[in-house]
């Protein structure tokens, strides 16, 4: 029993970080309808900026007052990612649909390749020795604050405009919604919270390398919100928990651990084929129509 309990404590930060990551992508992809496949890039920028602060810029200060340093590192990670989001977003967001998806893949890869060639942060060897200064409550608090502020954002007039852009760009524009501005806003906010996830990730793992932020990380983040249901905050949380739990559960059996990515791929295909609204969609349809037999298609 204590074994399971310690496992929960060991994995809790990872779950929470992935919840932040999924919620942040959900702003871009779910609420604003911008198909981004470069989220790992912003996650990486946050991780490197925060770890750069605690390891390279202010190691003494971090040793003296770790909590203040950690808070600062988180803000630095968020600011760096928000800036990266702005720089990528301004040119990219002129594109739509699949073109945008490919451009964000390109930017995500460029961020990784630049990190891979930056000697100051260890290039391909990565950045080791990041101090272990994140208590679990801090990550939990950060997660709650993230969900709370994103919730507030989406319920504000800003959020309504963002949703309007997703639903119908041309109709939104004719209602004097500044489409460009709200797309950029959603992109920057999403990137910013990805940066927070990155900052926490770096200090949780205590080691980061460019290749821990590859294309597959973006795909996994996407998988989380797809499993949960695009555009639903609760869906993002559920999806993040499930997608994080699957490999950990499969790890209990070595043969299953080998095929976890295969299972991810199959889940992605099957959800899109049969339940494109994700688990939240399934839950909603169950709650709305209890005990009513499903009508045949046709």
């Amino acid at each position, binding site marked *: 029993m204590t074994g399971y309990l310690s496992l929960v404590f060991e994995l809790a930060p990872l779950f929470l970080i992935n919840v932040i990551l999924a919620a942040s992508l959900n702003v871009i992809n779910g609420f604003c309808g911008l*198909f981004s496949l470069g989220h790992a890039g912003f996650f990486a920028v946050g991780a490197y900026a925060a770890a750069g602060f605690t390891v390279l810029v202010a190691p003494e200060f971090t040793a003296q007052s770790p909590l203040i340093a950690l808070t600062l590192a988180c803000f630095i990670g968020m600011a760096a990612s928000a800036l990266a989001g702005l720089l990528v977003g301004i040119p990219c967001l002129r594109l739509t649909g699949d073109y945008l998806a490919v451009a964000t*893949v390109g930017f995500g890869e460029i961020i990784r390749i630049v990190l891979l060639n930056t000697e100051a942060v260890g290039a391909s060897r990565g950045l080791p020795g990041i101090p272990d200064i994140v208590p679990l409550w801090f990550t939990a608090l950060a997660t709650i604050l993230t969900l709370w502020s994103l919730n507030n954002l989406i319920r504000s007039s800003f959020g309504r405009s963002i949703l309007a852009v997703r639903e119908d760009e041309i109709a939104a524009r004719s209602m004097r919604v500044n489409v460009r501005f709200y797309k950029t806003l959603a992109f920057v906010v999403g990137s910013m919270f990805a940066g927070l996830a990155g900052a926490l990730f770096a200090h949780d793992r205590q080691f980061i390398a460019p290749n821990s932020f590859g294309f597959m990380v973006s795909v996994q983040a*996407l998988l989380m919100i797809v499993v949960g249901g695009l555009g639903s905050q609760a869906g993002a949380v559920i999806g993040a928990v499930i997608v994080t739990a699957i490999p950990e559960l499969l790890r209990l059996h070595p043969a299953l651990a*080998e095929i976890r990515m295969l299972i991810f*791929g199959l889940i992605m*295909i099957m959800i899109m084929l049969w339940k494109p609204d994700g688990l939240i969609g399934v839950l909603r349809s169950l709650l709305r129509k209890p005990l009513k037999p499903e009508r045949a298609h046709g």
Partner: protein
Amino acid sequence: MTIVFTEVVQYLINGIAQGAVYALIALGYTMVYGILKLINFAHGEFYMAGAFFGIVAFSVLGLPPALGTIAVMVATGLLAVLVERLAYRPLRHSNRIAPLITAIGVSIVLLEAARLIAGAHPRPFPQLFENTVYELGTWMPALDGVILQKTQLVIFFTTLVLMALLWFIVNRTKWGRAMRALSVDFDASQLMGVPINRVIAFTFFLGAALAGAAGLLVGMYYNQAEPYMGQLAGLKAFTAAVLGGIGVIPGAVLGALFLGVAEALVVGYGESSYRDAIAFAILIAVLMTRPWGLLGKPERVKV
């Protein structure tokens, strides 16, 4: 930095060989996009599958080169038809994001299947012929020091033959006409009795067969095949297709040759560690300035 003529020629030869391979992959992207407006993210995996099918055809079954190549192309083509039938066709009338996500899923499934079957490490590709190295200086003194490998000649030759064949199919056959009709107006073609499901399956078959041939050629060129080879190559070939104007068949070839040469020059004259970034930089620059590509036409959004 001095620019030496023979060096430039050497980089051009290497770049065109690489570009020819990108072209074969890019054609599949562009044909599928032209008809379905779908970025087939799994297309790079057909190229990877081609390399592994090549190992099976030549090392395991011991087929002669020509027959083996055809067998590999048919096998990759059928794989793509299967993928289209199971994963893309059911989503043809949904929004545009759903098939994109499915395509990523298919890509992961194919990649992981290859990794589980063949292992994560590179597998040796059988040598089909003696790779003679030709010194061009012996024929033309101005080109002293420039070398041309026999594998590169085989790549040029095979690519040219396959492209001629593709040109013939698209422009001179009934199936090709149906493909072109679908890319102009999907619904009208359907009303005119074009069997859309079969034409789309045929398009996937053609595109994947070309990608399979590309995988075979690259396996032969570098003497190895590995499960991850399709990811980057797929993204780069897609870049090439966008650069040339996605949906435009000659554009894919032009874009691919441009990309191949650009990469060879970056490796030759700059930082080879940035080689992979070049494709993405080009991709983004094109998307920013001229998203319809070199040979495409801008599309207007109508309400």
